[in-house]
């Protein structure tokens, strides 16, 4: 890797592989290209405009989160999980809390489960809106869709701030419940945001879905077949965009998801447009879940009374807990040796594993499509590099 190889890799010419007159152009895209959503680099070989090779290069944001967690207490790792996928801190907290609860056999009170669903689905709403905004931004639609998306996201972030104290680094969940109960009037405010959300989605669809330029740029671009998606362990909206019906909220029914009625939207072609549509439809389903959860939330405690905050030591053993985060399957694999620190702490990052098929999707496409395909994967470098 290193800076020197990156610099020399910029625009080097190599003989074409087909033995013709043309030469291959090797381009180093990134690490600070605005469309790479962070510091991420791709070594791309181009034959004219066509991509013939693409190798992703990771690690620019690597801080060895897993090693840090081995020196922290179980609670001490919770704020670090916020910084994995920094758009969806609450679902990260949830996945970690779920894994620890499996490891130690902790029951979560009813009200806390509802709070988790409400905040988790709000996270999904704000993640998917901003991802669609970013996708359009990558496509060259500077400003408008992203600003509209951020305007809506802001309303959700305001809810998060008044509930958890922070807009992005929420650090909200604890083993056996949630940290804070709703302040007065929060539920009404949340209901208002949720009720208004479908109107915004209609507006977004009128603005984008029928747009001829968007269709030309996305339909048939970055096709991912069903078989490859399953084989490569793709999860989340990207998998469902390829038509595989696999949503961990339905499969594992973790938390209380079996109480809500919602559908799992599926794509047909597995191209960028389908992934975009799956996200839009998923938001409508999230709104349904939210309406049910806000209607049904019971009063009661929000923390399991038996679980200690300080001096938490689960018995020796291991557990793998996974959730459907907005990006895909976010799992935590924990091994305890009975001490206050985990012996092994592993994050299964959906962003990294969804990038496995990046080259397969980009081969044969134009160089400008790489940016669109990347945008449709929806990855966050904080989680890719950990």
């Amino acid at each position: 890797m290193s800076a020197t190889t990156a610099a020399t890799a910029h625009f080097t010419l190599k003989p074409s592989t087909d033995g013709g007159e043309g030469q291959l152009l090797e381009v180093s895209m990134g690490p600070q290209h605005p469309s790479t959503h962070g510091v991420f680099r791709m070594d791309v070989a181009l034959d004219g405009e066509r991509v013939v090779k693409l190798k992703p290069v990771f690690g620019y944001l690597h801080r060895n989160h897993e090693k840090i967690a081995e020196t922290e207490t179980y609670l001490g790792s919770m704020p670090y999980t916020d910084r994995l996928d920094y758009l969806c801190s609450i679902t990260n907290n949830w996945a970690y809390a779920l894994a620890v609860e499996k490891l130690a056999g902790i029951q979560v009170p009813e009200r806390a489960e509802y709070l988790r669903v409400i905040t988790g689905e709000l996270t999904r709403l704000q993640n998917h809106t901003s991802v669609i905004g970013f996708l359009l931004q990558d496509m060259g639609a500077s400003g408008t869709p992203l600003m509209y998306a951020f305007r809506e996201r802001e309303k959700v972030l305001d809810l998060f701030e008044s509930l958890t104290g922070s807009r992005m680094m929420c650090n909200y969940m604890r083993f056996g419940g949630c940290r804070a109960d709703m302040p007065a009037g929060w539920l009404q405010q949340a209901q208002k945001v949720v009720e208004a959300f479908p109107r915004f989605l209609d507006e977004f669809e009128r603005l984008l879905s029928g747009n001829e330029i968007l269709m030309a740029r996305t339909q048939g671009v970055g096709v991912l077949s069903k078989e490859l998606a399953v084989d490569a362990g793709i999860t989340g909206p990207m998998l469902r965009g390829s038509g595989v019906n696999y949503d961990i909220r339905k499969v594992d029914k973790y938390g209380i998801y079996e109480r809500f009625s919602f559908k799992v939207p599926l794509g047909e072609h597995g191209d960028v447009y389908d992934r975009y549509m799956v996200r839009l439809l998923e938001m409508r389903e999230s709104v349904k879940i939210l309406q049910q959860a806000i209607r049904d939330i019971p009063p009661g405690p929000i923390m399991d009374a038996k679980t200690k905050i300080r001096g938490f030591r689960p018995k020796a053993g291991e557990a793998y807990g996974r959730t459907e985060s907005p990006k895909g399957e976010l799992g935590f694999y924990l091994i305890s040796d009975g001490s206050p620190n985990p012996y092994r702490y592993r994050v299964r990052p959906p962003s990294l594993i969804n990038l496995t098929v990046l080259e397969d999707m980009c081969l044969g496409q134009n160089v400008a499509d790489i940016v669109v395909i990347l945008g449709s994967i929806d990855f966050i470098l904080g989680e890719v590099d950990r």
Partner: protein
Amino acid sequence: MNLETIKSEIEANVPGCRLEIVPNNSPSGQHSLLIDHEHALFVASFLRDAAHLRFDYCSNVTGIDWPGKEITEKVKIKKILDGVEQEVEEIQKTQSAGHLEAVYHLYSMEKKHGPVILRMRTEDRAVRIHLPSLTPIWRSAEFQEREIFDLYGIVFDGHPDLRRILMWDGFEDHPMRRDYVEPDDYEYEPTPHDAVLQKAKQHLNETGGR
């Protein structure tokens, strides 16, 4: 699905394989299956292809480091004392080699069941650190096995592109190993304490104050 039945099914279909159930005492109850190197690929492809199992989705692949422990045991040794052979008890200290471990969490997207957890162990932590790669069976292991190679140093035979992934190419050690010593890259910090304070003191002694 019961791990015992899966084990006996694998044994029936992959002749000669050596399997062992690794129990897990935590409330999660996720027991795992230790498989041997020679038959790993056969076991994996059986799990993926058998019509009623169809573990087509390898979710999580990760490494674990189990360093060697010092084992103290009393051993009876026959010794010749005063011309007579006698049994003498001696305390012997041996260093076990330890091992590295790769863990695979399998689910089925078709049948929507799981997980089945596979484990493979290397013989030691220094030389015999090779394991067969399961990337030919599940492509999702590609980046994750690369990550294990990078951070733990397990060499996966048969991996299509085994390079470092998170650390840079010139990096030498494997940072996730338990005995990894971080390089001495002291930086001034206004609030040193604990390990940082030790480091700061050491550096200030060497340089005679800042």
